[in-house]
């Protein structure tokens, strides 16, 4: 070592300077991180520690018109996890599966939810049973990242009775999350599926809250963080419907387990839906918290198709109930009056071209209705009369009349996925479908009596009869109370309206629906027996229809009933009269089954 004092002093100066510079640069670096970039790191530190726990909002309670509860919320429990990555999620789930029953579907669903939104606690079970919760609480120390939360759970006190219109709630699907309609929704959230739960999703949803928990590096909750940051979930406002739960339950009871079909009851004055039922039904409460696979499969495989709403999605040939469309079209055109007779009296059949078209009486007692008026033809449901009436109106006018009476339009009822009734848009339809020479004018005869290229929904027939029951204004059926919407679909004179209603009352009084007579009130309506082409043991399995209203002079309820393969329309009329008499609190006369 060179030990000359000058050398040492020089190296000492260099060393001192270098040390000073080194420490100073460290200080500058710390000043930069701690003072200049403090905000950024403070934020990161909070994000580190604070775990946002979503608090689901209670969905809006659904009431009927008298304040009875249709859908409410009960306390339930959800289990979720705040994993670090997919691998830790998988191992946690495996661990969890060793303590409680966890299906492979649930595991896959959880992984899918995590992949979709890794920053949100991943839902594992949306409706955990008390036993699962207690097992998890017991093992809490082993599952630091699991979150057991008290969450509102949807409950329908009259589950199967209201399934047809209320729908149910379920987890949002991947497809929904991708669609703009559900922008802002998060995986694992519940949405309305079907029925008014879906139709009014935006109203019923409520606003999700959030609670910040302080967690440690292993995800264990240490304490609740500053409540200042928290947002309470905001329950959605209640939803008031036009449904009459007492009537709805009654309708469900009539259908029971044996009848298949649908029934709609409307208030013709404002279109309020008093009851809407599709049979067979199912228990929507079983759908809460994920539909059990075997229950879902049994519903899918049921040949009675319980998942199809028979009032809004089922389309059936309307049969004789449609004769009123032909009658109204003819009256509107001024071609006939209620007293008009047809050139050929009914003898049980009508020759058109080289073919004989029979009246329904031909099949039962090989007789005819004779020379009758339009009123009588409606009462007796005379096919021969209506064949001729259809020809008189003409195919083009008949089709145009049906279109203007709403026979190829959805009713606009506030239920999702309503099917549009099938009815030709113009004569051109036949040219397009069968070719210009592939059809004859004989289709007019079929259309005039509600057969042929014609399939209607139950709710659409109810809407049309609501217009008949009032003044030609068809109300839009509304389950949820809102401003009534009415559309004028035809205009007839007061005498014509009264005459039509009298004729319809005559159907029940003397005609085809005598079994539906109600003592003390006038019930008006029309039966329909729609051919289906389906035979069992050589007997055609017809759809049974009845659409009617009461009291006939001042209607307050319109009922449309359709029994799938239910035989004669008289059966449907019997169901409808029971519904109406229950609603109007009047006992019906003893049912007397008549022919026709």
């Amino acid at each position, binding site marked *: *070592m*060179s030990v000359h004092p000058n050398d040492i002093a020089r190296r000492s100066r260099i060393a001192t300077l270098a040390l000073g510079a080194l420490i100073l640069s460290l200080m500058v670096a710390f000043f930069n991180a701690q*003072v200049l970039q403090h905000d950024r*790191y403070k934020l990161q530190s909070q994000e580190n520690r604070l775990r946002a726990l979503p608090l689901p909002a209670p969905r809006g309670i659904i009431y009927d018109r008298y304040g009875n509860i249709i859908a409410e919320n009960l306390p339930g429990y959800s289990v979720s996890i705040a994993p670090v990555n997919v691998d830790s999620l998988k191992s946690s789930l495996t661990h969890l599966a060793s303590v409680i029953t966890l299906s492979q579907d649930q595991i896959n669903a959880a992984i899918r939810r995590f992949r979709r939104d890794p920053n949100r606690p991943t839902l594992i079970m949306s409706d955990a049973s008390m036993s699962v919760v207690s097992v998890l609480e017991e093992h809490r120390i082993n599952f630091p990242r699991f979150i057991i939360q008290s969450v509102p759970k949807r409950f329908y006190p009259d589950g199967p009775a209201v399934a047809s219109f209320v729908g149910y709630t379920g987890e949002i699907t991947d497809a929904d999350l991708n669609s703009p309609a559900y922008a802002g929704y998060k995986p694992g959230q519940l949405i309305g599926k079907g029925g008014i739960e879906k139709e009014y999703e935006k109203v019923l949803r409520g606003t999700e809250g959030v609670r910040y928990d302080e967690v440690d590096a292993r995800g264990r909750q240490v304490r609740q963080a500053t409540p200042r940051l928290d947002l309470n979930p905001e329950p959605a406002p209640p939803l008031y419907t036009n449904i009459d739960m007492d009537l709805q339950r009654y309708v469900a009871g009539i259908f029971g387990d044996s009848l298949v079909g649908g029934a709609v009851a409307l208030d013709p004055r404002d279109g309020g839906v008093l009851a809407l039922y599709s049979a067979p039904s199912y228990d929507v409460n079983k759908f809460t918290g994920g539909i059990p696979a075997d229950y879902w499969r049994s519903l899918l495989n049921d040949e009675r198709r319980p998942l199809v709403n028979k009032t809004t999605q089922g389309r059936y040939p309307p049969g004789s109930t449609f004769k009123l469309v032909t009658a109204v079209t003819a009256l509107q055109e001024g071609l006939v009056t209620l007293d008009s007779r047809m050139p050929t009296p009914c003898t049980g059949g009508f020759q058109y071209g080289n073919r004989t078209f029979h009246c329904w009486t031909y099949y039962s007692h090989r007789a005819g209705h004779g020379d009758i008026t339009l009123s009588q033809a409606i009462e007796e449901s005379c096919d021969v009369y209506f064949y001729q009436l259809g020809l008189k109106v003409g195919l083009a006018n008949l089709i145009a009349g049906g279109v203007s009476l709403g026979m190829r339009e959805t009713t606009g009822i506030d239920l999702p996925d309503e099917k549009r009734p099938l009815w030709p848009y113009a004569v051109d339809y036949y040219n397009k479908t069968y070719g210009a020479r592939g059809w004859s004018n004989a289709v007019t005869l079929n259309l005039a009596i509600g057969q042929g290229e014609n399939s209607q929904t139950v709710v659409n027939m109810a809407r049309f009869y609501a217009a008949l029951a009032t003044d030609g204004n068809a109300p839009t059926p509304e389950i949820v109370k809102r401003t009534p919407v009415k559309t004028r679909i035809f205009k007839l004179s007061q005498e014509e309206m009264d005459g039509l209603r009298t004729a319809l009352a005559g159907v029940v009084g003397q005609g085809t629906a005598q079994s539906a007579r109600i003592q003390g009130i006038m019930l008006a309506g029309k039966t329909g027996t729609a051919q289906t082409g389906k035979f069992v043991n050589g007997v055609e399995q017809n759809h049974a229809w009845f659409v009617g209203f009461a009291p006939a002079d001042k209607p307050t309820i319109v009922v449309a009933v359709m029994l799938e393969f239910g035989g004669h329309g008289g059966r449907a009329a019997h169901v409808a009269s029971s519904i109406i008499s229950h609603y109007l609190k009047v006992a019906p006369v003893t049912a007397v089954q008549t022919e026709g």
Partner: protein
Amino acid sequence: MFRKTLADYPLAITAIALSLFGVAIVYSAGQTDIPTYVAPLWKTQLMWLGLGVLCAWGIGNSSVRLIEWATWPAYLLTLFTLASLLVLGAGTGANGHMRSWLAIGGHRLGQPAEIAKIVVVLMLAKVLAERREAPKSLLELWKPGLVVGIPFAMIMLQPDLGSAIVFVGIFFGMLFWSGVPWPLLVLLASPVVSLVLSFSTGLWGAWFLVLIALVLWYKPYLLEGIVLVVANVATGVIAPILWEKLAPYQQNRLKVFLDPSADPRASGYHVLQSKIAIGSGGLFGNGFTLGTQKRSGFLPEQHTDFIFAVVGEELGFIGVAVALTLFLALFLRATRIATRANDPFGSLAAFGLMSCWLVHVVVNIGMTLNLMPITGIPLPFFSYGGSFMLASWLGIGILLRISGEGRGQAGAIL
């Protein structure tokens, strides 16, 4: 030679202040929301501090000659211990693959590498002090090179990259203090620079031109010059092969140094959490024991390698500045002692000890802010660890003794 009146109080006070600061932070590091084994460690640390102060007092009352005399046997013993470690050593929990612990019958006695650093400083001082003139060529550096090289190689084999880097720091620091001209130091370091820069052809090319210019200007022996140039080319070529030879965790550490967010859940996690802890401390910090990053367990190794992040989070920039100022005071005091030492051995030993701590401080503190790659070397007087506390205070004792025998007033501030 017992000269009590000349005790170097500024040094002793600085060292005590640093150590008590350190124990306080070890205590705080144990204060987590969910208590861990770290909680009671501050008591152990305090015990080691007491033992260290006792040793320092003992050495402070011995003599520099005695220390010099003991250097050779201590060096041989160190080499023997390091060699036996390679056969018998035990890893620690966090670094289970490293054989750096001396254990007998399953009881870990300590990490000999910490004591080895002090001994190598003394041995190097002894060797460098023998020469009246500083080495002027690389060939003359064979003896000091060997003194550092052997333990360096043994520690690299453990493998303990962090401690090995400290040896390099000591070597260069002491060569500088012994008067080796700076161009020679640069030439000596050039192969390592080539190794690092070889990952970018442009940078390596530029460095190579600088090197050629330096060789032509400094004019070393022809053979030396050729060897240097060849060595630089060779390291540049073998660098990718060496990279392949590194363990994946070592590769990751270097990658993470360049971009901590590259691997935020694994290797980058430590650095990221440490930076967040320090940055969230702000000017005044969250308050002693109240660091949330630390309390919630986000800060890893909070009582050992990343202890300085606790200082940053809880005491803020003020606390950091105080700690850094204390370290600066220690370094300047050691430099003063080296300047005033009575003989070359004492002077070199003092500067060597300072170099050793300096590398620890710069690398460790730099690491907490991602200014340095993660090498896992502790912070003197702060990081929990018995051997290291003891070794640090042995160093303080030696400094106290050298200061006591030096020229002028040992206890004077400047």
